[in-house]
């Protein structure tokens, strides 16, 4: 250990700026510039805009309550009965009251039908619809949409809960800009103290959703309205005839709305809490599904946004390009970097690895502390996470990168997403055949 430390200190002494850049170019070029400098800069701009827009926002809020449009809340799912009562109670507490709640049971085999019917009879939910045969998340959401009467549609996951002003805050962007077609809510982790993996996901959600989506939303390249909490203009959804087959239907619908020329916004103050996988094994399953959908939808189904055509839009191009570049291309580029380091800097590899870890960790601390200042509300004490931040390098930089790589390869080479049991085979067969 002592030898390792002596060796490392000697390495640092001998390190010239030229060597430093040669060995850590990956960090500087991609991570530091994109995920720190650019993000920090835009975050400040976003906050300034938010401050400047305060009167406009207040006016939008006032108009929302004057118009008081009916909002349809859709809750599709299978075997979610146990969550519904709690969810409905949290919805009854909302500051925005003119809502109809439509629960669709997608072929549950537990007591969900009984719970749903009793909630409908007690008038705690507006409509409970059940399909005896499972059709998948998209079909359940589409069924709810077909019978929704609201001017705005909010899509929720049954196992989530919401701040009492969440519905109000997710609707306000529609009244600030009439060209907004969809708004994503801010999803945070409810069970962040359950295990190490949930704590790490909580930090990840803070970075990628709370901060990341504020930035992309400001830049006009926000690309995924989370299925756990998303609001849409009903006319836009009806125009699109709802969701297509998943997995990854939330990202897909967002792109479809963008392609129609509507803006997508992120409502940082529309807070939703969700429970995340509590073991690394469960998380792998979830992330494989999510990451495969990036290839399936961005690189195949919606590849047209990358090419000049009659419906080409620059921001849509940037949105997809940035997503593919940073998540897919650089993911594989990292392996190139690793190979170079192992090939040309093999004697120094341990020292380079340690330096990378220190660099990323230091950046994580600076980012986390600085960005926390921009967070309007917190459901968990920020200090709780500080001790776990060093783990993020291994969690995000290695664990999730490996999972992503497997997912991309599975999808690129074998189109594995069409075999995902998350969606019933009867629909996936058609999706694969049609290439959607």
């Amino acid at each position, binding site marked *: 250990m002592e030898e390792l430390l002596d060796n490392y200190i000697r390495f640092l002494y001998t390190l010239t700026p030229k060597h430093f850049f040669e060995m850590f170019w990956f960090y500087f070029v991609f991570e530091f510039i994109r995920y720190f400098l650019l993000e920090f800069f835009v975050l400040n701009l976003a906050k300034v805009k938010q401050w400047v827009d305060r009167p406009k926002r207040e006016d939008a809020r006032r108009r929302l309550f004057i118009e008081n449009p009916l909002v349809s809340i859709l809750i599709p799912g299978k075997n979610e009965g146990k969550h519904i009562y709690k969810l409905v109670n949290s919805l009854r507490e909302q500051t925005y009251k003119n809502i109809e709640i439509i629960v669709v049971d997608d*072929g549950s085999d537990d007591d969900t039908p009984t719970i749903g*019917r009793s909630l*409908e*009879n007690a008038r705690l939910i507006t*409509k*409970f*619809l*059940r*399909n*005896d*045969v499972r*059709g*998948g998340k*998209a*079909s*359940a959401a*589409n*069924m709810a949409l*077909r*019978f929704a009467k609201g001017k705005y549609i909010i899509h929720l996951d049954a196992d989530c809960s919401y701040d009492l002003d969440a519905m109000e805050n997710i609707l306000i962007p529609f009244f600030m800009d009439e060209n907004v077609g969809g708004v994503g809510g801010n999803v945070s982790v409810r069970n962040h103290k359950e295990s190490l993996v949930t704590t790490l996901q909580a930090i990840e959600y803070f970075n990628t959703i709370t901060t990341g989506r504020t930035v992309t939303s400001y830049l006009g390249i926000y690309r995924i309205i989370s299925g756990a909490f998303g609001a849409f203009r009903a006319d836009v959804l009806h125009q699109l*005839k*709802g*969701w*297509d*087959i998943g997995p990854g239907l939330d990202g897909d619908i967002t792109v479809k709305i963008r392609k129609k020329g509507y803006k997508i916004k992120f409502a940082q103050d529309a807070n939703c809490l969700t429970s995340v996988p509590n073991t690394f094994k469960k998380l792998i399953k979830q992330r494989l599904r999510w990451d495969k959908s990036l290839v399936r939808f961005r690189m195949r189904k919606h590849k047209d946004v990358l090419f000049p055509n009659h419906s080409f839009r620059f921001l849509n191009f940037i949105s997809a390009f940035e997503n593919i570049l940073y998540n897919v291309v650089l993911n594989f580029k990292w392996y190139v970097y690793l190979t170079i380091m192992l090939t040309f800097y093999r004697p120094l590899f341990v020292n380079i690895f340690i330096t990378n870890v220190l660099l990323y960790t230091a950046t994580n601390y600076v980012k986390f502390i600085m960005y926390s200042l921009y967070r309007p509300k917190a459901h968990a004490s920020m200090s709780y996470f500080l001790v776990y931040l060093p783990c993020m390098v291994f969690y995000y930089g290695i664990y999730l990168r490996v999972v992503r790589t497997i997912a991309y390869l599975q999808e690129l080479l074998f189109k594995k997403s069409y075999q995902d049991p998350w969606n019933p085979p*009867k*629909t996936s*067969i*058609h*999706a694969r*055949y*049609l290439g*959607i």
Partner: protein
Amino acid sequence: MKRSTTNIGEIGTTIEVGDYNFLFIRNMSATAVEELQHHAAVVIEAVNQDYVRMVATSIRANPSPDIYLKPIFLLKKDASETPLIDVLADDSVKNLSELESLLPLVGRIASRSQELTFINSISFEAQLITKIISLLYVRELKVIEPVPYTYSNICYYYPLLSVNFDHVDEYMALEILNIGEEDGIFRSEFVDRVYLCSTCSSGHLSYREVCPKCSSSDTTPDDVIHHFPCGYVGPMKDFSNQIDDKLDCPKCNKRLRHIGVDYDKPSIIHECNNCNHSFQDFYVNAKCLSCGDDRSVETLKATDIRRYHLTKKGELSAVKGLITTTKDIDEVIGTIKFDTFKTMLKYEIERLKQTEGSSNICAIHITNSSHVYSRLGSELQRGLLKDLVTVIRGNIRTADVIAFQSSSTIVLSMSDLPAKIGKRILNAIPELLHDLIKTRFDDLDVHFECRLVQLDYTKSDEVHLQELLEGYF
């Protein structure tokens, strides 16, 4: 057999058999059941069932024990059974020559009727319980059996008791029996459970599947179709093609070809033709055919129909008189007990012997009390009686006294007053009472009859009372 036939107009015929005379009522003849108090029994010619039911019901519903306790016999040629009438009647004969065989029964009923004691109560419930236990005792019956009956408002009929109520108030028979059970007069056992309208207690309900939103039963079902390739889900009408009757997906325009391969029908949706609400599960409503109330079945009154057995205490109460019930009405303020009234009457007659003044006793009788009280229940009955006393008290002198002879008859004294003035005062009271009832109770028709008897010191108090109360029960 000694038989003499006397024609008494259209009312009926008296047939003497042995030591008893029977009132013979021919089919469809005009009836006055009051005639029965002068007969030992009645024979009804059973040709038209509705007519027989009407006559038998009016006898058993009469408030006077001299009428309702009398045996009813049917003259019928066949042996057909009509459960309701068979319970109301005591026996049947095929021709009048068989009446002699009924004499022991008539004698037994007459004899047991003599054993009964009637204690006047102003409680309608107590009166009815007295009536039912008297009927049971006289006939040596122990059980009050509920009879399923289509024409009953609660679907079950307790013939000897339910006849006392109008069709819409039949449910009150259950309350009377429950009061009797609480007082230990009856014990009961479960027979069935019926569901009654929460508004009018009728059991005649139409159960229907209705729209959860507007309660209309005018709905149209439609299959829900899930199109696999694009995930569109909607009712079949969304897919219907106007041109060739084929199914085309409204989202991706593909033609639906093969159920289970490119589409399926995961559920059914109903659309309300009244409010356009779409739903999958109906609410079940019960529409009351009596009052029209249309509500969810959860709001119906679940009511047990029980078989009631007369207890030892019940039998004893029939013989010794029913003292009180839990629902009995306390003495009404402003009145004195009837016994006290009788004592005061005795003293007044004695006083008249000395003074030779002019004093009167009066009666105000509610001729349709059964109808009135069966509609009101004990709480409102108490209110009505109090109101009546207040009005009467306001129109007579302070020294005059008021008492209840029964819940349907109020007696009062008018001492030292010429009979002519007394009559004038008395005749003005019913109008005031009608005005009062009109303001306090909706659609309640109460009929009053007034009678005044001038006291004659040569007659006893009992004779005066007999004269005053003749025909009032």
